[in-house]
């Protein structure tokens, strides 16, 4: 069980969150879900082990994806975790500004999602 890669999914929409969770668990990943940036930061600050990958939604209540990323980049413990954004805006402009590893456009394609997640965790 220790060989399982951990992914932190930060997504406010429960249905999306559940769908991604079931698919990636099927692929052998361990999923941790937060419903906004604030929850994710809270989780990370207490987590015994850092996740191998973060899947980050942008538009979320309380703390959005960009705000989360700013906090993440300032924390040396968290900054190195590869982070992929899930964009519902139909575009991926902010990849370089926030040093995201990759960008997935909603609605997500199953094969692309699995492929990108594998590539960034291997």
């Amino acid at each position: 069980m220790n060989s399982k890669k951990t992914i932190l999914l930060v997504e406010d929409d429960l249905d999306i969150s559940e769908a991604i969770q079931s698919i990636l668990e099927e692929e052998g990943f361990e999923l941790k879900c937060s419903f906004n940036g604030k929850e994710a930061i809270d989780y990370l600050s207490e987590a015994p082990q850092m996740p191998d990958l973060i899947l980050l939604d942008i538009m979320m209540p309380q703390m959005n994806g960009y705000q989360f990323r700013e906090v993440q980049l300032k924390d040396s413990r968290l900054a190195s975790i590869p982070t992929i954004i899930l964009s519902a805006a139909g575009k991926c402009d902010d990849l370089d500004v926030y040093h995201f590893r990759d960008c997935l456009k909603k609605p997500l394609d199953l094969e692309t999602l699995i492929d990108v997640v594998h590539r960034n965790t291997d």
Partner: protein
Amino acid sequence: MIQKTFKQTTSITGRLKRIMSIIVIFIVFCTVIVYLSSINTLHGLQNLNTANLLLNFNSQAIELVNNAEKNLDKTLTQKSVDDLQLLHDKNSGLLLKLTNDSIAESENFPELITLLKTFNEIQIQYDIRYRTIIQKLNQSLAVNKVKAEILLARQLLLEAKETLSKIQFFIKNEATEIFAQTYKNRFEPIAVTSIVAIIFFVFVITFGLSISKKIELSLSNLLKATNRISQGDLEHQAKILEFDEIGQLTNAFNNMVVSLKSTQDNLNQSLERSRRLQNIAASLSEALIPDQVYTIIFEQAYEFLGAYSAQIALLSADKKFLEIQKMEGFDKEIYLKWKRVPVTSDLPITEVLHFGSPLFSSIEDLKRYSALDAKEDEVILAHTMACLPLLIGSERLGVLAFSFTHDRQFNQDEKDFMMALARQCAQAIHRSILYDNAKQAVEARDEFLSIASHELRTPLTPLKLQVQGIARQAKNGKISSLTPEQLQKMAESSERQINRLSTLIDDLLDVSRITSGKFNLKKDYCSLKEIINEAIVQYSQRLQDIHNQIDFVVEKDTIGLWDKIRIEQVVTNLLSNASKYAPNKTIHINILNKDHIAKIEVRDEGPGIALEDRDRIFNRFERVASRENLGGLGLGLYISKQIVDAHKGKLFVERSSDQGSVFVVELPEENLT
């Protein structure tokens, strides 16, 4: 430059005339002098001539006396007395004539006349005596007696001779003296004539030269000025040296140059103005926001008109106020006092707005406006004011006003320029407003599209993942490993996503109907309580994952003529908002009736809504929270408000604090229209 008036004090022709008359008088004077100087000489010459004549007479007289003597000698020897008588008469007649002629010629010599008269008397005595002798001879008297008579006669002849020699001596003396005198003064007339001639020439030359010199100088001055003007120097004025005809000509020339200059200035000014207006038009066409427009207009007013202050006031949306958009030049207190004035105030700007024509008010004119206070508006009242309406066709946008120091007068050109400026300004403002509206509309549309696309993508994501998941299982031959529970969960989730999508689409369609005016109500009598209950059921079914408790209190139910489905939609929206902003908290619903108005109050326990946001949230695409923090199209409250408005009711936030917000729906019991 100003045209100069000219008073001619001298005249060239006048001067020439004067000089000519002086010359004539001078010539007459010279002639008189020359005549006077030569009259003595003439007189001398005349006297000499007379003397000469008299000498001639004298010598003839001597000869005649001698003849008489010979005649007398012959008397005793002569036989014929008659012959003697004849001879004597002839001789005596000649002598008498000579004597008389000499007397006539000697009028200048009185002494000579005396001598001649003495001679004449002697002659007369001799004549008498000689006749006596002849008579005695005729009587043949004794020769002795005749001899005595002859002796006496001879004696008379001697006396005559003596007198004649005296006369001769006198004339000779006199002639010598006259000649000496005349000879002595012989150069006098020439000298006088020469001096007079020299004076005359000096006079003529001096005057002639001075006049010609002055004329030459004046003309060369004028010529120089002409050359300079032909080279384009219109500032140059020819100097007036003499106030005569040339001076008059020079003055007329100078005035012509002044008017030429003023014409050229006017032409330049109007060229400058049209160039300026073109530049303004060009600058304004690039000015997209109102402030840029104001800045350009103000700059022109300062630069070109020398305005002291500039203001632009626009009519408020309700057309009841003039609101100053920008004011420069005056103090802030003045701005604060006048930034928003009712259009009914007695002010130049409101008058201009009312009549739609420009107004140029002097300091005196301004004192007539009752709204201007002598003390508080002292600064305004100390300036001349130009107010220009900002018109687009017949529509009044506002007023452009400039203040000028001193009691400034405006010429027609300046007025035209200001009016052109106001026209350009109005058009630019109109353009910028249109641009602003269009920009806002585009921004709103872009934001709406972005939100809509986000909101539509969100339910699509799990739907697509689930469908692709099933396809993947089928492909891998694992479809049979799915349990019925898993399949049911998938189907339920999919249905939920589809419902979400259809709700979104319904909302978008509603907005589209509202904007295009195709929003119709299907009214029927219904109970408010039932509507709310139905809405709660709907809400609970739609939002299963949100766990808000609902506390519904019926203070007083109302049966009204409403569109049941739409009112339900309003309540569902309010519930959905409440659960979104206050998740997991209780939502309180209360219905009551006051003065035949049904009231629904929906209170949440969320963070509340700031006062400044309470009107805004009912607009399209507006949310209290920033876009990133909360999903949703921001259409719920907008649609709800449109529905309530269509029922002639009211939807508003009654109060909002840390304890939450209260949204109130007021519906008239019946609205049959």
